[in-house]
């Protein structure tokens, strides 16, 4: 560790660091510079969090577009006529349940139990797939009724926002399947635990976005 990267001079590198109050005793151990590149602990998790924050901005823009266009029906159907709230409630409960089953998977992974981890991940994936199935059914129903994305500004922004969220869930499920196969092959190695943490953040983040969707789009959309 002491001799990994030491080409920098002590004065030039970081003059403001490490005042030599304890140094004179051992001149050999005296170092005024970092011998290794500095890495943030858990750099991956921090980086993934930053990705999620940028994703948050994407959704903010879509929400803003919906906020502007959400009542421009162009003579077409309104949210109150189109939205089926019991179906939305079902969808919401699927996603909420999948959040806690992912939490159970994380708990099992923390205990180091591979089988239950994979089991809970599978349940999470199934719930996510059920969410997607309901959403695809809803979209197909809307398009079949002639309320496709090209019908009005309201429907364009609706499909853009909810569709983007659905795409995120789709890719979350792809990631989940990949992760389960990696777990089966390599077990709960540190790399897989890190991936598990990242997907956990992604999955819970999608649930957070869905809170905004069902509140702002569905529930406020049917208000008179």
């Amino acid at each position: 560790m002491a001799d990994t990267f030491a080409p920098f001079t002590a004065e030039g590198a970081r003059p403001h660091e490490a005042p030599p109050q304890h140094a004179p005793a051992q001149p050999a151990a005296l170092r005024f510079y970092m011998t290794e590149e500095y890495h943030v602990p858990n750099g991956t998790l921090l980086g993934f969090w930053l990705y999620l924050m940028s994703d948050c901005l994407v959704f903010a823009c879509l929400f803003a577009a919906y906020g502007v266009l959400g009542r421009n029906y162009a003579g077409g159907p309104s949210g109150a006529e189109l939205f089926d709230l019991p179906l939305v409630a079902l969808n919401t409960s699927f996603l909420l349940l999948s959040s806690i089953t992912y939490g159970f998977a994380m708990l099992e992974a923390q205990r180091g139990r591979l089988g239950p981890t994979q089991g809970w991940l599978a349940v999470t994936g199934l719930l996510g797939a059920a969410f997607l199935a309901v959403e695809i059914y809803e979209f197909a129903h809307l398009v079949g009724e002639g309320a496709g994305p090209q019908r009005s500004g309201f429907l364009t922004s609706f499909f853009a926002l909810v569709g983007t969220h659905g795409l995120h869930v789709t890719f979350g499920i792809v990631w989940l399947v990949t992760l389960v196969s990696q777990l089966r092959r390599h077990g709960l190695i540190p790399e897989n635990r890190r991936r598990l943490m990242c997907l956990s953040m992604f999955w819970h983040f999608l649930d957070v976005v869905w809170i905004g969707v069902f509140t702002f789009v569905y529930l406020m959309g049917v208000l008179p």
Partner: protein
Amino acid sequence: MSAHDDTLAAHGHGPASGNDHGHGESEIHISLGGYVTGFVLSVILTAIPFWLVMGRVFEQSSTTAMVLLALGAVQIVVHMIYFLHLNARSEGGWNMLALIFTLVLVVITLTGTLWVMFHLNSNMMPGMHTTKTLP
């Protein structure tokens, strides 16, 4: 929630988590209680908005909208704390800093867009008012 204690606790956890060196993956100690608390709160905070809208509890829809937005905001905070394990000390505070910065941008995006477009709407269509008065 004390992140420092949790960090220390996570290192002695199970046989598989003893090999985290630097890039530790289990720094965030998660507990069943936290998840269950978050889930129960989320269920309540989800059920109330649906009940408010489907049961037509309030007469005025503006009241309902305000309550819905407030409950949604509370639920987002609940998810952040209990599911995303966010606190002021995770990742040395950088998580929280990034979140605050993002929230500022989100607020600017949303309020700015709505504000500008609302005024644009009301200013750009003078014809709407005149045609209404025509016979």
